[in-house]
């Protein structure tokens, strides 16, 4: 077994605006099962950060416990990382975000880490609109403990040992919509063409961006009867493709009218939705919820950007926190002296 990637790279790798190649965003070699969907998500995050020309040292990766939460080791090897307690990544992310609002925060969680042990923290993260990208690598089972059904396993889905799941699965995308998330997307690890631009858009979004990614467990949930296998997901897939164009770049592709909608983010970058249904609007929360329900009833798996509020107000703005990171503030700012104290006191009289 190979424990390290060879040092050689393609001599003609393209470079991004920072002069980095995609390999500069690599992490250690994965120790997950060969063919795990999570590795594809890792590659999509790597590619997204490369394409968006984000400085690796300006990114922080946060995770909890589980197969999914191991993955930050396998991408962005030159970025910051915090592997927290099971289900407690949201509180670490909240603290980090208010302490240093200038970093890009990418949280990686799983269906267990988010929908079971971490559910309590997860909904508060949404409620507070912490400025981060939160990706759930969702395989509907506990792969690390030999494949028991998780809280997101679909009703009737067969486990590897043949038992049908008797409970309705939690739909994390619907939950995030209900709870008021400002960016909700859903995707499939085997569809990088959609997942990469969605991650780029999520990173550009100011506020809490949630992406639920079906990521097949190749060892415990990739059999006939599993609703989250590669083939079942592909069979049911109803994907709404999208493109992400950062503000710096000019738009090169031309789309036919009626087949594309454009959504502009706060920083001027644009998300293009292709082949979107005529009546589909990314700013209609109710419609998004209805679409999810409808596709479920039709035994379809709807993926794409489901909802976006481009003008959302994140936690730092809501709490009116200092505009600079704590580590940037010196003695003068933190301890402004008795004259300022006096003036505050005067203001309260």
């Amino acid at each position, binding site marked *: 077994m190979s424990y390290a990637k060879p040092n050689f790279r393609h001599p003609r790798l393209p470079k991004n605006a920072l002069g980095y190649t995609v390999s500069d965003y690599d992490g250690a070699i994965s120790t997950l099962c060969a063919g795990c969907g999570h590795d594809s998500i890792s590659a999509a995050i790597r590619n997204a950060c490369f394409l968006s020309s984000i400085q690796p040292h300006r990114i922080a990766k946060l995770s909890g416990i589980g197969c999914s939460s191991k993955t930050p080791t396998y991408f962005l090897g030159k970025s910051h990382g915090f592997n927290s307690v099971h289900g407690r990544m949201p509180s670490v992310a909240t603290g980090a975000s208010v302490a240093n609002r200038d970093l890009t925060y990418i949280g990686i969680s799983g269906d267990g880490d988010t929908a079971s042990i971490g559910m309590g923290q997860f909904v508060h993260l949404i409620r507070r609109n912490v400025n981060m990208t939160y990706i759930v690598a969702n395989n509907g089972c506990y792969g690390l403990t030999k494949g028991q059904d998780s809280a997101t396993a679909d009703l009737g889905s067969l486990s590897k040992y043949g038992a049908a799941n008797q409970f309705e699965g939690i739909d994390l995308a619907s939950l995030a919509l209900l709870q008021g998330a400002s960016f909700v997307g859903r995707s499939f690890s085997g569809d990088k063409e959609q997942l990469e631009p969605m991650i780029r858009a999520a990173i550009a979004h100011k506020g809490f961006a949630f992406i639920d990614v079906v990521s097949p467990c*190749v060892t415990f949930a990739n059999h006939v009867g599993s609703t989250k296998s590669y083939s079942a997901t592909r069979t049911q897939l109803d994907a709404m493709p999208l493109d992400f164009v950062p503000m710096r770049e000019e738009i090169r592709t031309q789309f036919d009218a009626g087949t594309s909608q454009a959504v502009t983010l706060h920083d001027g970058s644009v998300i293009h939705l292709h082949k979107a249904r005529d009546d589909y609007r990314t700013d209609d929360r109710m419609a998004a919820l209805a679409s999810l329900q409808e596709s479920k009833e039709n035994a379809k798996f709807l993926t794409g950007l489901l909802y976006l509020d481009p003008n959302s107000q994140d936690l730092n703005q809501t709490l009116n926190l200092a505009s600079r990171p704590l580590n940037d503030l010196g003695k003068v700012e933190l301890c402004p002296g008795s004259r300022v104290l006096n003036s505050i006191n005067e203001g309260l009289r």
Partner: protein
Amino acid sequence: MKQTDVANPEYFHKVVDCQYACPAHTPVPAYIRLIAQKRYTDAYLINWESNVFPGVLGRTCDRPCEPACRRGRVEEEPVAICRLKRVAADHKDDVAKHLPKAGPPNGKKIALVGAGPASLTVARDLAPLGYELHIYDAQAKGGGFMRSQIPSFRLPETVLDEEIGYVLDMGVTTFFDTYVDSMAALLNKGYDAIFVGSGAPRGRDLPKLPGRKEADANIHIGINWLANVAFEHTKEIGKRVIVLGGGNTAMDCCRTSRRLGGEDVKVIVRSPFADMKASPWEKEDALHEGIPILDNHVPREFVVEKGKLVGMTFDKVAAVYHDDGRRELVSTGADPEFVPCDDVLIAIGQENAFPWIEKDTGIRFTGWGTPIINDDETFQSTRKEVFFGGDSAFGPSNIITAVAHGHKAAVSIDLYCQGKDPAVRPPPYVNLVSQKMGIHEWSYDSIPTVDEREIVPLEDLKKALNDRKVEVELGFDLDAAFVEAERCLNCDAQTVFTDVNCIECDACSDICPTNCITFIANAPEEELRQNILVPAENMEQDLYVSGTLPTGRVMVKDEDVCLHCGLCAERCPTAAWDMQMFFYNVTKATPNLVDVR
């Protein structure tokens, strides 16, 4: 693009760049692995089967394999393939017991004209089949140009004698000191077939240059002079020597001159330094021995005073390259330059010459003086029982090309003697075996090392220049050989893709360190080359295209900079990728000559 047909052995053969570039298609990675395993005898035997003269070639080969080496495309320098070959030859045990013997007589008699590498290869390939082989050569010993042209400081006589001996010991009848002066007479001797491997023996001269006749005593044709040195007819040369020419013969002439009393030896060449025909390492070796190379100098005149050569004058030129690739040497207008000297060696090329082949034999020749040959597979001449090979077939080339010709000519002769059509070629020997040892383990060192190319130690310069028989290159020691052998990327460990097993999880594409693998909509080759993850600009390297996968896409792999590290197959959950060792041995008259497991 059409699905790649990997059942055609030429596809994977081409992926093994070194082997594909080698005229004799020596299985290079296979023997390099054996060197890393300290199995020097086996490494030698694989070489011997393929190229007959591993010890000679490990010192003197033109190395077409090294510029082709994949390592040179992902790193600075290719693997030192040639020097590793020498390691196998230098460190092997006694191999005689492993070599084939002459087969029981089959009643057919073959004449071989010239005892150079081409004829010796034909003899080696035919002897186990029971042919009676008569080899003729004008020299006192076998070897041809390997003996007369390559100086001992590059190729010790003991190495040459040993490897020629292995061939002649297979019951070959030799007629040395015998110059064949009539093809007609040879044809009348009742041979079933005749192979002509007499080389390109005529060195070019400058007959029209002023002063050529008057200074004749001190002007020598390079190849004749080297032969005279080799056979010890010539033992010294003047203190100041000019060598004309920029090929490997010129390099051998100048370095030999340094050892025969030449103190001020210069190579003077018409073309720019970079365009010289000599191998880069041979130019380096000459410079290392204090021999300046003056480029862009066109000979104008031999200057003679009182009936004796005193020097030469040259016109200075500059190379102008035209759009159509043509090069023109244009005078700079500077005054001619005088270079004093005592002797001049002319090493400006050589030509084919067949004064001994009569016109009425039915053997016809091209305007270039080379025989008209059926094609470069059969080597059959316009007279059916006469075959050509080596330099005598297409003009001057090198040893490994002569060996390659020999293999093909031997197959043709064998087919011809059985009354079969030489144009219908038997297939090569090919094998493809999975290297999977465990869940994620391969039976070869799959992850490439990062060591840089090892430097070969040289003999002390003073000692080397004192004696023309002291070998200059000392060869790798075994530690260096191991490090160098481990640099090999094992390109013969093929990435074999079985599309029906693929679940399109992208794991291979994500892990590939050189981004070779893309899952993409099919398109014509030109478009595919642009659309994949990193555009495939190296047109000499193929794209490996799968059949259509369930999502309608295809797998496209650019072979260009694949490291053969096996990570695609390691990360594949369904073994759609597998690393399979590819072994390819060219078609030979005797298919399997040695037994190496």
